[in-house]
């Protein structure tokens, strides 16, 4: 566990980074000829100004909690899971199929969808894990490339003439899931659903696993020092495969939550980049599962605020995206630099 002084210092660095990002963002907004105050007011309004705004933030934060967990559980084992985006698509697709075409009673159906989506994601994480452990294939490359495979495959499935295309609406999406498979919405009229509760539950679960069980301790010790772990009798290869499979499972749940709670169907290219946000979220959280909840809230707030900036006409959506990018960059940059330096020294 972090010492209290370290914790405070880390929080201080994070806050400083956020301030710096907003400062530079303000300069860019000003230079582009938009009102800085209007953009920031709307960013705030869109993220926290009222029930709908908070709903938007929570809706966007929900999948990012999962993908942040996905990134950090692999990170704790010394692996970079860049492929959460694809694992999420696979999970979402399988959850949508189980949700629409299986007939089960309420609750059981939701559990079945989550399990199927999670396992599908886990399989998509197991492949690079196996390749890494048995053949030494760099997981950086394999997870990312498998992402493109997953997204492209899902595109094919829901495109017109694809086997899962919904003919009724013409759009690239599957049919609606059964009512028994839907996660109830908890903050109507917003899109926030029980998926949020599931996400927080899993954050606690991951925390318990990593810090309170021997298996989690072993997984972390592989990340801290592989030779020492091996000397201590831990079978490293199995841990590597397990870590990436768990990462895939969590990302798969992110997609399942989107299908079961937010959209009630699989929509082609539904993600604005939640998988990538998870990398940022995991790093902002300093790879701590509880921190991931708050990191995801920040990312979700930025996304929700960006929508309001666009709607109010304070600035085009692109400007909001620039701001999001800056915040992520400034928060991650120090962590990333530190991590890379540590890895080079090794």
């Amino acid at each position, binding site marked *: 566990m972090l010492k209290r002084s370290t914790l405070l210092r880390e929080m201080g660095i994070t806050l400083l980074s956020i301030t710096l990002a907003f400062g530079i963002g303000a300069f860019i907004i000003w230079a582009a000829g938009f009102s800085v105050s209007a953009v920031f007011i709307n960013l705030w309004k*869109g993220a926290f100004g009222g029930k*709908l705004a908070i709903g*938007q933030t929570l*809706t966007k934060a929900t999948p990012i909690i999962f993908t942040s967990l996905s990134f950090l559980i692999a990170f704790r084992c010394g692996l970079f899971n860049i492929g959460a985006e694809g694992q999420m698509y696979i999970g979402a697709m399988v959850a949508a199929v189980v949700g629409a075409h299986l007939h089960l009673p309420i609750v059981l159906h939701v559990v079945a969808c989550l399990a199927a989506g999670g396992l599908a994601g886990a399989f998509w994480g197991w492949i690079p894990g196996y390749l890494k452990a048995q053949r030494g294939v760099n997981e950086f490359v394999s997870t990312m490339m498998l992402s493109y495979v997953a997204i492209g495959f899902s*595109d094919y499935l829901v*495109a*017109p*003439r694809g086997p899962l295309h919904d003919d009724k*609406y*013409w*759009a*690239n*999406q599957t049919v609606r899931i059964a009512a028994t498979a839907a996660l109830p919405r908890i903050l*109507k*009229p*917003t*899109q926030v659903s029980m998926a949020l509760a599931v996400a927080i539950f899993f954050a606690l679960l991951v925390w318990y696993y990593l810090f309170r069980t021997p298996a989690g301790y072993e997984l972390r010790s592989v990340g801290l020092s592989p030779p020492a772990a091996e000397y201590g009798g831990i079978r490293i290869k199995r841990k590597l495969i397990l870590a990436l499979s768990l990462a895939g499972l969590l990302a798969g749940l992110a997609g399942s939550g989107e299908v079961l709670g937010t*959209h009630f*169907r699989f*929509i*082609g*290219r*539904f*993600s*604005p980049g939640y998988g990538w946000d998870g990398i940022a979220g995991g790093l902002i959280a300093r790879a701590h599962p509880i921190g991931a909840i708050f990191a995801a809230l920040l990312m979700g707030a930025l996304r929700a605020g960006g*929508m*309001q900036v*666009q*709607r*109010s*006409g304070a600035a*085009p*959506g692109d400007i909001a995206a620039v701001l999001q990018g800056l915040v992520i960059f400034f928060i991650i940059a120090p962590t990333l630099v530190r991590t890379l330096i540590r890895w080079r020294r090794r």
Partner: protein
Amino acid sequence: MKRWVAVVIAALVLVPLVASVGVAQAPKIGLILATGGLGDRSFNDQSFKGADDAAAVIAAQYGVTVEDVLDYVEPADIAEYEGFQLQFADSGEYAIIVCIGFDQAAPLEIVAPQYPDQKFVIVDMVVIGDNVASVVTNDWEEAFLCGVVAGMMTETNVVGFEGGMEIPLIIGFMNGYTQGAQWANPDVDVLVRYVGEWANPTLGAELAREMYNAGADIIYGAAGKSHLGVFAAAEENDGWYALGTDVDQAATAPEHADVIIASGLKRVDLAVESEIMKMVNGTWAAGIFSYGILTDFGFGTGIAVGNLDVNQYITKSESEVEVPCEVILKLIEAANGIADGTIVIEP
């Protein structure tokens, strides 16, 4: 102390309340564009123009600026529609919310019933509801007229069609185009390609090149921003030409006026403007409103071709391509045939 706090709270609540009652507010328009986005110089730009024109009228009436009246968003993908629809509706600021594009139907069916007092308009798809006006167009009519031009002007007897996605809406365009071409020229062959995306001009150009190389000399694009790539590809060789969609694209994409022979017209601007003005005049009603030559409105589709306004269906274009007189005469025959029912198009 307590009383002081109460006074402040009362003031905070009452002042805006009184202020909002005192001034007659200009009705606000919310516009949610399709994923093709602004800059497609076709469907989205045309829809925006309709809303913008209406906003200008309202703004002049109330002495405010257009920006005060019209708010719009460009969703990047279909998963964002529901969030935006909720944001607009829940703010309660908008007298009317206009949703552009067929793919907004699924989320609107969820959102509209939650806000029964909010007026919605959806373009290109039907959503049933007491607070939704659905605006649809006989797209196959404009496509048929474009097919007539292609059938008569092709020298290779092979023409092309590039659609955005293989969905009933675009298949309607394709069928109208094919029937028009074969009505004017029974020997013509039609090549068909679908981009699969609405905002990918690079892929649009790639598919167009392939059709040109396979012998097509005129390609009709109905793919949003993607078929801007058809125009770019047509520039690459003498004798390669293109047809535009929904607006006179020789005017909206003037750099390609030398290859765009003509453009189908879909007056989605008029449709959007009329829905908004109905709201302003208090005559707005829910229901299905179908535009086209063969509908109650009798207008809404047509073709921009040549340099003369012939009638309400055949209007002049900024195109620099010479169009022979007999093509125009054939178009008049076709438009009249559609209007009086002697030409039946299978969409």
